[in-house]
């Protein structure tokens, strides 16, 4: 029976009030300490529901909730959690043998994460699934969302994620969860400020705090995909430096766009990413505060460091785009050059280029150099600020991987650095480089398996693509057209889009089984 179908058209307010209908005996053994408050879950539910009540007729929302409410299951691929045991990190073969969505046999607060952004991915998929189920967004026949729908999910998930964290973070993890691989620029925190200031939280039933935060602001005007505040701007309230648009972005802005969407950035063909979960005994605490403190104390140093790193980052982005262009112009030549480079250590590529020069190899060298510059810059930043951005132990294993496996462009500690994870980019032409060499990934994992100074375990995940719609393929087409050249490549419909996706339950291996057991 529905008891709550009283509505007006004048917006629905969202007072987060403690319940007046408490249990008759709250001290009974029902207290669940393992499922204590989880603001990421609670605020995702709250904001998705509130937006649905604003966007649709509230009676429709109540109908969609049904007489028995909704059951939502959130589950992660195994790579999000460290699968180590007492005997150490599992090999990739052992990881592949694990059941999908393996239970972790632990309360959620004790889980060891691998740093892939599980809270952002959880928040985004939860918000997306609720907005979809409640009829606020719809996907098309091929299970893809339109840009406007993705932007609305993005903005709502950013709100829930920021509110749960208690601050506006960098935001790229939620952006990646929606748009897939990309060149990210931060949105202006002003976009969310009024909503965050309104201070909504989800209270536990029976809480004595009767004056809990209320949020009477309508979300829709702020979360509107066409709200210009979501468009990153050099005039943003957090901007200090000068904005330099990259070639990747330049090729994307030409598209007619009513919503803000980041420029896609995909790895070029035959280049792959390998990820490792590193265990150094403890998780690295955030170093952002210390880095900011150093910037305040040494503004001149910091300014120089920032411009060096910005230039190297831009060279890397442009180099990856240039490689995609090279592939589109002459796939055969690209393939041949990659096969040659994959047989050599990347430190020997300059020598190879003397005897076997090619445009592709020159670009691979450029990307390798950019990765070295970035790594060097981040090490220097850590040294100057006195924090372990890329500690020596990590540098050593990265160097051993790059120098000890053929065709590795470079590697680094992702994101803000620390001891938790590392990645390398490597060439994979799909064949054994030569009769006496193992396939590239096996060489890399071999180095990690024998590393004793740190426990370095592989993950199965590779780099994903950008969200459907404006892919990097259309970027490449645009670039070639400006040069008056047609692409040699037929459109590839087999590419799995990255970013937020919709599925049928049966199409995801092991998913129905996992939630049935719940």
């Amino acid at each position, binding site marked *: 029976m529905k008891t709550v179908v009283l509505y007006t058209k004048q917006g629905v307010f969202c007072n987060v009030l403690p319940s007046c209908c408490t249990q008759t005996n709250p001290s009974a053994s029902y207290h669940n300490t393992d499922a204590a408050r989880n603001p990421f879950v609670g605020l995702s539910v709250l904001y998705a529901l509130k937006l649905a009540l604003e966007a649709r007729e509230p009676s429709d929302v109540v109908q969609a909730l049904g007489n028995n409410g909704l059951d939502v299951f959130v589950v992660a691929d195994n790579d999000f959690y460290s699968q180590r045991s007492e005997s150490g990190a599992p090999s990739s073969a052992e990881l592949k043998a694990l059941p999908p969505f393996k239970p972790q046999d632990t309360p959620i607060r004790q889980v060891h994460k691998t740093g892939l952004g599980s809270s952002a991915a959880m928040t985004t998929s939860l918000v997306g699934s609720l907005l979809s189920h409640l*009829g606020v967004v719809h996907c098309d026949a091929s299970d893809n969302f339109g840009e406007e729908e993705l932007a609305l999910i993005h903005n709502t998930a950013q709100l829930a994620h920021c509110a749960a964290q208690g601050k506006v973070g960098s935001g790229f993890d939620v952006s990646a969860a929606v748009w897939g691989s990309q060149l990210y620029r931060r949105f202006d925190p002003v976009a969310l400020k009024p909503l965050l200031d309104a201070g909504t939280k989800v209270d536990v039933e029976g809480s004595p705090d009767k004056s809990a935060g209320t949020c009477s602001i309508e979300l829709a005007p702020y979360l509107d995909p066409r709200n210009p505040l979501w468009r*990153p701007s050099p005039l943003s309230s957090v901007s200090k430096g000068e904005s330099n648009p990259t070639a990747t972005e330049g090729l994307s802005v030409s598209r007619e766009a009513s919503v803000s969407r980041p420029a896609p950035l995909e790895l070029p063909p035959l280049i792959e990413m390998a990820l490792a979960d590193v265990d150094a005994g403890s998780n690295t605490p955030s170093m952002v505060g210390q880095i900011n403190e150093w910037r305040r104390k040494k503004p001149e140093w910091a300014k120089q460091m920032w411009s060096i790193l910005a230039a190297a980052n831009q060279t890397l982005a442009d180099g990856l785009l240039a490689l995609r262009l090279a592939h589109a112009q002459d796939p055969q030549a690209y393939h041949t050059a990659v096969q040659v480079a994959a047989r050599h250590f990347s430190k020997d590529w300059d020598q190879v280029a003397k005897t076997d020069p090619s445009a592709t190899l020159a670009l691979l060298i450029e990307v390798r150099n950019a990765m070295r510059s970035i790594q060097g810059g981040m090490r220097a930043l850590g040294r100057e600020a006195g924090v372990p951005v890329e500690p020596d132990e990590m540098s050593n294993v990265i160097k051993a991987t790059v120098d000890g496996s053929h065709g590795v462009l470079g590697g680094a500690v992702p994101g803000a650095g620390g001891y938790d994870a590392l990645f390398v980019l490597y060439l994979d032409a799909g064949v054994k480089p030569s009769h006496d060499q193992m396939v590239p990934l096996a060489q890399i994992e071999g180095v990690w398996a024998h590393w004793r100074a740190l426990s370095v375990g592989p993950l199965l995940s590779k780099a994903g693509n950008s969200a459907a719609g404006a892919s990097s393929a259309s970027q490449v087409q645009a670039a070639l057209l400006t040069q008056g050249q047609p692409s040699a490549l037929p459109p590839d419909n087999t590419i799995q889009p990255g970013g937020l996706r919709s599925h049928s339950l049966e199409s995801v291996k092991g998913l129905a089984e996992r939630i049935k057991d719940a």
Partner: protein
Amino acid sequence: MNWPLLILAGQGSSVEAEKETVRMAPANVAQKNPDGSDLRDRMGDFASCRIDSVAMEGCMVHAANESVRTGENHAWAFVSHRRAPSRHMLRPCEKWKTVPIEGRRTLHAHQHRMVRQSTVISAPGKVLLAGGYLVLEPAYPGLVLSTTARFYSVVQSGEIGVKGRTNASLPSIRVHSPQFINATWEYLLDIHEDRCAVYQTRCVL
């Protein structure tokens, strides 16, 4: 008429219906398949069938295939969204949508039981390739790769007499994280004329 209760995906979309009966008036019938073949010939059999009104809400049924009637697998219907889902900001989206009907076999055997419709959405993880610290300012872009590893969220309508429902007078959303011990959160939704409240229950489900 003794039609099985059909559950079609396409949540959130209104029905051209009298109560639970979807009538497909000729004006609503699609003229063409997406592949160009004509659909009109096949429509006679589907002039009337019971459709779950919640699931079909907001959708217009344009056509359904033979399997809808015979109860075989691979049943489908074409629906489109008739109405803008948002009063504020979302434009109408007139998209064709192929809708799989899940669990037809079960339906056939237990026609009285509703088959749970699932909304499944996944989001990838991330790796910040380059741009750590700098990315906090919009002037500096970050190079972000998504991962092939994904986080999935599955939404289903609650079953009748769901285990652990604590407050029968209010609807609730229950979020389960089955990879962890005791990880279920229940949120009671107190939706009123002038406000809505969401609060977490204290109970283990």
